[in-house]
């Protein structure tokens, strides 16, 4: 893996600095990962232990106590569906803002963002009452809709920013060739903005995955996601850091692995060299 690089002093410095900073940023997570294999007593030891006999007891305890797959399934369903639904609504809107702006476009975009400005907790009682009246408390459906709504403004904004990077001439050229809106979207816009769409999607996936406030307050026994699993391990009476670490690792595991696999697509989707 080192062969293909032309090594010089600059590259060495850059590599070392990047790795050092990345590890520094990642350190708390690494610490959590290590803690998840400790016993509760080892977890609070001073100084922190780095060499110890790892135990899986925290993980077995979590699986013993709660149905991890049930929560994980709910997380996957709500975050994936809300991301897809959100993209279906946001892509056309962002397209319109980016390529057919009017005088009011900026105002509408600003207004969209302002729908997120009300603190969630201020709207809790209204939403709770509405959900209850509609029989939507503790339903995956309601969570999916809410996730879509809270992420929609962000999706529109990110996609807008991304579409703006695409030279209008390319789209116009396609239109000259008689492409319909759909063709234009599929054959020109989509390939060019794949990176942006992917990163928007990933961010919404992560935001939905980690959304805790609405999950905790609107679900009970059925629709809880991994955020409510984490909540059931946070701060009980007694020592809990090792178990919380284990459950957190389980909760973020799928999304980190997903991020790992998708990061190449995320940043390499947009290759301008090809169209110039």
């Amino acid at each position, binding site marked *: 893996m080192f062969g293909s690089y032309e090594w010089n002093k600059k590259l060495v410095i850059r590599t070392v600095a990047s790795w050092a900073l990345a590890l520094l940023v990642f350190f708390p997570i690494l610490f959590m990962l290590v803690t998840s294999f400790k016993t509760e*007593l080892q977890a609070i030891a001073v100084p922190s232990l780095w060499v110890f006999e790892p135990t899986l007891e925290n993980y077995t305890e979590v699986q013993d106590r709660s149905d991890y797959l049930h929560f994980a399934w709910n997380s996957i369903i709500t975050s994936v569906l809300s991301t*897809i639904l959100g993209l279906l609504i946001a892509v056309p809107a962002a397209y319109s803002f980016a390529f057919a702006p009017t005088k009011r476009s900026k105002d509408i975009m600003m207004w969209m963002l302002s729908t997120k400005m009300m603190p969630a907790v201020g709207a809790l009682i209204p939403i709770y009452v509405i959900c209850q009246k509609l029989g939507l408390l503790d339903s995956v459906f309601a969570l999916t809709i809410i996730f879509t709504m809270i992420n929609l403004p962000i999706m529109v904004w990110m996609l807008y920013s991304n579409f703006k990077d695409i030279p209008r001439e390319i789209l116009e050229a396609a239109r000259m060739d008689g492409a319909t809106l759909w063709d234009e979207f599929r054959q020109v816009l989509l390939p060019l903005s794949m990176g942006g769409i992917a990163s928007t999607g990933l961010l919404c996936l992560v935001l939905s995955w980690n959304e805790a406030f609405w999950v905790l307050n609107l679900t009970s026994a059925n629709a809880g996601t991994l955020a409510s699993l984490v909540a059931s391990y946070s701060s009980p009476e007694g020592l809990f850091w090792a178990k919380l670490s284990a459950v957190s690792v389980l909760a973020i595991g799928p999304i980190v692995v997903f991020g790992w696999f998708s990061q190449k697509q995320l940043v390499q989707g947009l290759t301008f060299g090809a169209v110039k």
Partner: protein
Amino acid sequence: MKIKQLAMAVAGALTLSAASIASAETELVIATVNNGHMIEMQKLSSKFEEANPDIKLKWVTLEEGTLRQRVTTDIATKGGQFDIMTIGMYEAPIWGKKGWLKPLEFDASYDVEDILPAVRDGLSADGKLYAAPFYGESSMLMYRKDLADAAGIKFEGRPTWDQVAEAAEKMTDKDNGVYGICLRGKPGWGDNMAFLTTMANSYGAQWFDMDWKPQLTSEPWKNAITDYVDMMTKFGPPGSSANSFNEILALYNEGKCGMWIDATIAASFITDPEQSKVADKVAFAQAPQKATDKGANWLWAWSLAVPESSKKSAEAMKFIEWATSKDYIKMMGEEKGWGKVPTGTRASTYANEDFQKAAVFADAEIAAIKSANPNDSTLNESPYVGVQFAAIPEFQAIGTAVGQQMSAALAGKVSVEEALEAAQKAADREMRRAGYYE
């Protein structure tokens, strides 16, 4: 084509999750706190399901603060999400009085009289029991026997605060990371104020006088908080203003604290060698007194109640009866060991010889619980019920605001007097808003 398949999958997934709700058996949704005893109950509940095949239990386990928010929102909006709620001694009488909870009635075999009277009273309103205690706790002094011996200190029965302050000084050995005394400091009515109210009680203070006027600037409060801040600044661990039960437990189990006054439930953690480095060096005494021993230690019971909105109250009560029965405690003792049974609820538990042998803290705990009386917890007469709280709806707001001021005083950001002035103002504001006086 692809979109169609996707839509099918989506529809399938949604119906799947909807279908699981509609099953033939009665499903009880239980909201509970994620403390150890509840987790054990959840694990053992399969036995209940075996005995009652027509009942299926679904658990919502949450951390204390979140649970309180969740069940309060639900019961007040009549959301009907839960059939059984885990609540404490603060909520039970208030909610019972409002008619939000179903009164509990049990068979004679359940032996309601066996429930400790102070606990039973605290969970009742107008003579009706609204919540059945699952485990109860008081507060007590837990200290390091080895350090006390080395310093030549002996605690007997209920020490005084002066003795505790003296002991704290002698036990402190900062060079070796030992702090004489660890106490709660994180703001919150259930965090630092639970402890500080008992300390203030023992100094002769009270939250409200008989006209419901807040008394926070009174002499006893001033003395109590001054001593608290003084002691913690000199002999307490750094960062105390962010410490509550768990943070101190971690310190204690690491051997960093000489004394700790907190929930009796802590005893089972600090004497457990799997969690604690000092498991064999712990001894217990009653929470300290100063002007009085009234209200010097708190009383709390995590209890199970049935909201009025539940349509399955018969089944819910059946479960509560099972979970809070003598048989449950016996089963727990036989299966997991008598040291791990839920305590603080029934006189029969403390009479059990196996329990007495297994739980070194049993005597201190029952003495503490018996000495707590929510109806008479202050030196001067008070209009409210509750030891470490006042069972009025406004108290959460007041306790939270006052708690913040106390943590500021502990952190040295304001003087004790300024903090109490501000606390008094905050309490007065809430009481005025609620219309207790003009």
